[in-house]
């Protein structure tokens, strides 16, 4: 919550911005990268898994490896999310 700065309580000579635009921007970018990134990675994984059923040989292996990789990345993101929950700022 400290990222939102109340100008009234500031003792600084320089006026503190009412909205911490920089922090807001950081939050939006991080949320967009993770939110869109995870959806995209898992969606590609699902598409690869679905297409592998109609493929054969090396293409099938590549699709399946890609799908597994996507799931692994998403699992890592989940683990990082839990880490953030446990170590959230007080």
């Amino acid at each position, binding site marked *: *919550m400290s990222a939102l700065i109340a100008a009234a309580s500031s003792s600084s000579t320089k006026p503190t911005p009412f909205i911490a635009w920089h922090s807001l921007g*950081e939050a939006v970018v991080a949320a967009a990268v993770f939110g869109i990134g995870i*959806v995209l990675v*898992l969606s590609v994984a699902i598409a690869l898994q679905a*297409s592998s059923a109609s493929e054969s040989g090396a293409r099938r292996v590549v699709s399946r490896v890609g799908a597994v990789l996507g799931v692994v990345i*998403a699992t890592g993101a989940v683990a990082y999310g839990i880490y953030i929950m446990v*170590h*959230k700022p007080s």
Partner: protein
Amino acid sequence: MHQTVLLVAVVITGLAFDFTNGFHDTANAMASSIATGALKPRVAVSLSAVLNVVGAFLSLAVAATIAKGIVDQNSVTVTVVFAGLAGAILWNVVTWYFGIPSSSSHALIGGVVGAMIVHAGASSVEWSGLVSKVLVPAAFAPVVAGVIAAIGVWLAFRANRRSKEEVRDKSYRLTQVGSSSMLSLAHGTNDAQKTMGVITLALIANGTIAKTATTPTWVVASCGLAIGLGTYIGGWRIIRTMGKGLTKIEPPQGFAAETTSAAVILASSHLGFPLSTTQVCTGSVVGSGIGRGAPVRWHVFGRMVGAWVLTLPAAAVVGAAAYAIAAGIGGTAGSIVLALILAAGCGGVYVLSRKNPVTHHNVNDEWGPAPVETVVGEPEVAA
């Protein structure tokens, strides 16, 4: 004697608030999964309940303050907290009756602000803090979540434009179990601890525990169980609105909405810009409809926005009235009268709700006439 009665009243009311918080916010995590059939309604709320309890124990970074930076902390009394909780509970119950998802945290802040104004005057409220910590994030939350969810949904359908629909949907239903579980866990870590902070503060104020003491285990356990029980009871009315009332949700949309909600909530709180879970999740659901090019019932969304605007002042009015009653009568009698009024109000709303019950049996019934086609995003991609 009076202080002990007041302490007991605050503890019970705090747990009651956690309970309402649980059934009020189940929809945030589980409405999409229930709507798409990824989880059966009872299974969904059971899973969410367990994860809320686990979340309560996961992190103990409990803020031993309430409405920090919004009201003068030195003026907060146990009676103010009691009245604030009463205001928040009543607003939660009323919005539940109308099936409207609204922020429990904003209700609690509103209740405390109202009680503080009666107790110590308007100058005890840090209005700039109220605007920057509550109102500004409230304006951003649904927009940010909605845009990210819309992009995510568009990409999800784009990536799977050649996938067979049944194969695609089966996979996304599976991933929805994970994404909705993350939301439930995040809810447990965030919301159960608000009440832990309230109860801990009351215990410190009463001299029951030392100022330096950590949150007692029984407080952690009881708050976790209260929010878990509330979640298990399931706020079916709100789940129905979120899952069926806003837009038609398919599994890729549900997954994208839940994932972006979790990402927005975790990223923003980690970077010191916490947003309302309810507003983020609602924005994500609306965004998932826009991203799919599916019609959105804007009048339903409009009702929600109206409730969000009203949450703070309405809870403040109830909190102010509650404080006036408790302090006006004074002593043990004041606390008991307020508790009885609160119980009667909640009971009355519950009785009203029985006339038009929404349960796990009818939570997925069609909402009514299909929303008017107002294609905003990409046209639907053929499966």
